[in-house]
C-alpha cells in the first residue's frame, strides 16, 4: 500500500450471516492523507455498513469480500448519540481522556483545549447524563480525536447538531485533515459537513453509483440519489420578530404563554410563547442543549412527575387550560413524539405495537370486542397514513430508524389529538423519509390540526412552518 492512501477498498463487499444478498458490493474507494470524503445514500443503501466495514467492526457478523487496506489507526463515531458514550465514565472530562487512560497513559490531556475545538468548553466538569444528544455526540468525537487516529469514520455526525455546532465541527475536521488526518463521512442528508468534503460519492443498493464535487450538488442531483438537502441560506430565520406579525390569541389552537422550566436554581429557558393556529406548523429551533425537547415535554405534561423540574406558565388548546393536568389527560388534545422512539416500543410487531399503544376507553365487558375491532380499523388507517403497511408484521427494532419514528408518530395519531408535538422528526431521514414525514404533517394540518416541531434543519423549518420560535 502506498503512502498516499490511508483507506483502500478494492471491489469490497459484505453480506451479513443468513442474508442471501450483499449489503455492500463492488465498492472501490480510496482516501488519502488529508482527504475528507463523504458517501451519501438513501436509508438501507449501506452507508452505516460501509462505515463499520472501514472501521473493521463487522468482524464476525458476516462475510467480507474484496480487499480492504488501512494504514494507521481508525476511529469510528456511530449515528446514535445515545450509543456513542462508553458507559464507563460519568463525567465529560473522564470520557474525553478515556482513550489515553485505556492506552495506559496518565499524561495529562488538555481537555479544555480539545473541547474548545468544538466550542464545547462549557461542558468541562459536567455530568454526561445531563448532556443533550448533540453535546454527547461532540464529547464522543472529542474523545476519539485524543487518540490521534489516522482515519476518522463518521456515520451521520451532524445528526443532532445545531448549525453553529456543525460549522465548528467542519472547522475541527478541516484542521484534522490539514494535520494529515483523513475523514470518511456517511449519511442520508447533504449538510454543512458533506459540503465541506473534498468529494461526495453516492451509494445505492450497496454499490457506489457515482461521485461529484460538493459545489456541483443541486437539489435535483441529490434528489435523484435519494438524499435530502438541508443546505440553504437560512439567515432570515434569525431576523428579529416582525412587528405586529404575531397571531391573535383567539385564533390560536395551541396557545402557550410564558412557559418556563427550572431545575433546582437553573432556568432551562426563559418564559416562552408558542402559538399555532389550526392547520399551521410551528417550528422550534435553537442550539444544542437550549431546552427544545424540554419545552415539548413541558407542554405535554411529562415534567409533572419529575421532582427536579418546576414549570410555570400557561398551556391552552382550543381554550382549555392544560397546565394542571397530568400527561395522560392531556393526550385528549396533545400527541407527543419524543426524540428516542425506542422508549415507546415493546411489542413484537409494528401492528401489535399500535394495537396496544393506547388504553381502550372505559367500557363494558360486552363492548370490548367491538372496541378492539374499531382499534384494528384505526391502526390500519394510521399504518396507511404513515406508509408503514408493508412493515406491519416486522419487529419495531428491525425497522429503519426513520420508520421507527414513523411508528411512534402513528401511535400519536391514534389519539386523534388536536395538536401533535414532534421532537426532532427529521433526524437521519433521507429524501423519501422527509417526503413521508411531510405528507403526514400535511394530512394532519389539512384536517385542522396544528403541529409543533423541534429541528436543527433550518431549511426544512422555513419550508413547512408558518412561525418559528428560537430558543437561545
Amino acid at each position: 500500500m502506498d503512502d498516499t492512501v490511508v483507506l483502500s477498498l478494492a471491489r469490497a463487499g459484505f453480506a451479513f450471516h443468513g442474508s442471501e444478498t450483499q449489503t455492500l458490493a463492488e465498492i472501490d474507494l480510496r482516501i488519502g492523507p488529508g482527504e475528507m470524503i463523504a458517501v451519501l445514500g438513501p436509508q438501507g443503501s449501506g452507508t452505516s455498513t460501509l462505515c463499520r466495514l472501514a472501521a473493521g467492526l463487522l468482524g464476525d457478523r458476516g462475510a467480507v469480500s474484496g480487499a480492504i487496506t488501512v494504514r494507521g489507526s481508525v476511529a469510528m463515531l456511530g449515528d446514535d448519540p445515545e450509543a456513542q458514550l462508553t458507559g464507563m465514565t460519568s463525567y465529560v472530562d473522564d470520557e474525553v481522556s478515556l482513550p489515553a487512560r485505556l492506552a495506559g497513559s496518565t499524561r495529562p490531556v488538555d481537555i479544555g483545549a480539545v473541547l474548545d475545538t468544538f466550542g464545547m468548553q462549557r461542558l468541562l466538569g459536567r455530568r454526561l447524563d445531563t448532556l443533550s444528544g448533540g453535546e454527547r455526540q461532540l464529547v464522543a468525537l472529542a474523545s476519539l480525536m485524543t487518540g490521534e487516529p489516522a482515519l476518522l469514520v463518521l456515520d451521520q455526525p451532524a445528526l443532532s447538531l445545531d448549525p453553529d455546532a456543525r460549522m465548528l465541527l467542519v472547522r475541527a475536521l478541516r484542521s484534522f485533515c490539514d494535520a494529515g488526518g483523513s475523514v470518511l463521512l456517511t449519511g442520508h442528508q447533504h449538510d454543512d459537513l458533506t459540503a465541506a468534503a473534498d468529494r461526495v460519492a453516492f451509494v445505492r443498493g450497496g454499490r457506489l453509483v457515482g461521485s461529484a464535487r460538493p459545489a456541483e450538488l443541486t437539489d435535483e442531483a441529490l434528489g435523484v440519489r435519494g438524499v435530502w438537502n438541508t443546505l440553504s441560506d437560512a439567515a432570515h430565520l434569525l431576523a428579529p420578530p416582525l412587528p405586529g406579525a404575531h397571531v391573535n390569541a383567539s385564533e390560536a389552537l395551541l396557545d402557550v404563554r410564558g412557559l418556563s422550566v427550572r431545575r433546582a436554581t437553573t432556568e432551562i429557558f426563559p418564559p416562552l410563547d408558542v402559538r399555532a393556529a389550526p392547520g399551521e406548523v410551528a417550528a422550534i429551533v435553537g442550539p444544542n442543549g437550549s431546552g427544545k425537547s424540554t419545552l415539548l415535554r413541558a407542554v405535554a405534561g411529562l415534567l409533572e412527575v419529575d421532582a427536579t423540574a418546576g414549570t410555570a406558565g400557561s398551556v391552552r388548546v382550543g381554550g382549555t387550560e392544560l397546565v394542571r393536568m397530568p400527561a395522560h389527560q392531556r393526550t385528549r388534545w396533545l400527541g407527543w413524539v419524543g426524540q428516542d422512539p425506542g422508549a415507546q416500543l415493546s411489542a413484537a410487531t409494528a401492528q401489535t405495537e399500535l394495537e396496544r399503544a393506547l388504553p381502550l376507553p372505559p367500557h363494558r365487558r360486552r363492548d370490548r370486542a367491538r372496541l378492539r375491532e374499531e382499534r384494528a380499523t384505526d391502526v390500519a388507517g394510521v399504518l396507511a397514513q404513515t406508509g408503514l403497511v408493508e412493515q406491519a408484521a416486522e419487529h419495531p427494532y428491525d425497522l429503519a430508524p426513520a420508520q421507527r419514528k414513523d411508528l411512534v408518530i402513528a401511535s400519536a395519531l391514534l389519539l386523534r389529538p388536536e395538536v401533535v408535538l414532534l421532537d426532532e422528526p427529521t433526524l437521519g431521514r433521507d429524501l423519501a423519509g422527509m417526503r413521508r414525514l411531510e405528507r403526514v404533517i400535511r394530512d394532519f394540518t389539512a384536517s385542522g390540526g396544528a403541529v409543533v416541531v423541534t429541528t436543527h434543519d433550518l431549511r426544512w423549518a422555513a419550508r413547512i412552518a408558518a412561525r418559528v420560535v428560537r430558543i437561545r
Partner: protein
Amino acid sequence: MEDRPFAGDPVVNTGSAAPAPTGAANGRPAIHRPSILHPATELVLLVCALVLTYGIPSPLVPAALLVAATAVAAGSPRVRLGRWCATVAVLAVPMLIMVGLVQGLFYPGDDLEVLWQWGAAAVTVEGLSVALQLWLRVVAMIAVCALFAFGSDSARTFDGMIRLHLPLGIAYVCATALSLVPLLRDQVTRALAARSARGWNTGRLATRVRLMPGIIAGLVTASLVQLDQRHDTLEQRGFGRSPRPAELQDHPDGVAQRVLRWGAPVVTVLLVTLTLGGVLHLPTASELLEVLRG
C-alpha cells in the same frame, strides 16, 4: 408539501437561558467527586466487612457495621442518606419477615426453649437467635454493598479493580454491571413517560403492573442493544489494546491508604481466626438473648 415563502412571524421569541454553573447542568448539581479513599481501598474494606460479618458468629459485628455504614452514609457527599436508607429498608424488611416466619416461628428441633406457642408455630430462643443472626448479617451485607454502589460509579469500580490487579475482563464486567443500574432506571423513566403520553395513567400501581410485561420486554431488548453498542464504542476508544490500562480517574492515594489496604485484610483474617479458634469470644445471639431476658 409545496415550497413557499416563509410566512407570518419568523421569530416569535428570543431569549437567553442563564448559563449553567460549572459542574451543574439543567439544574442538576454534579455529584462532588472528591473522596478521601481510593476505590481500591473502598473495595478492600467492603470485602473485609463481608468476611467479618460472616466469619465471626456474633450479631455484634453486623450491628457495629450497620452503625458504621449509617454514619458513613450520613457524612458522605457522594451518597444520599434517604436513598440509601430506602434501599436498605426495601431489601431488608421482606427478609426480616421471611426469616422471622421461617426461623422465628418454625425452628426445628426437640430440645428447644419455647417462649410462646400457638399450634405448630412456636417462638423459641434458638429460632430467634438464628433469625437475629441471619437477618443482621444480611442487613449489614446490604448496607455496606449499597454504600459502595451509591458512592461509586463504573469508573471508580474499574479503577479499584485495576489497582488491585484483578483481570481486565472482570473489572470491565463489574464496571458495566454498575453502569446498568442508571441505564435501566433512565429507560424505565422514559418508557413510563412515553406511555403516559399515550393516555396511560402511570401514576396508578395497577396500570404500572399491567404495563410491566411490555416495558420489561422493551427494556431487555433496548439494554442488550445498548450494551452491544457500548462495547463497540469502548473498543473504538482503545479498550483491550493495552493489557494494563491506567486508572480512568485521578484518586487520592498515599502510604496510609496502602497500609490500610494491606492491614485491613490481615487484621480481618486474624480476628476471624482468633474467634474461630476460641481465643477471642464475642457473645452469640443466644447469649445476648439470655442477657436481655435477665
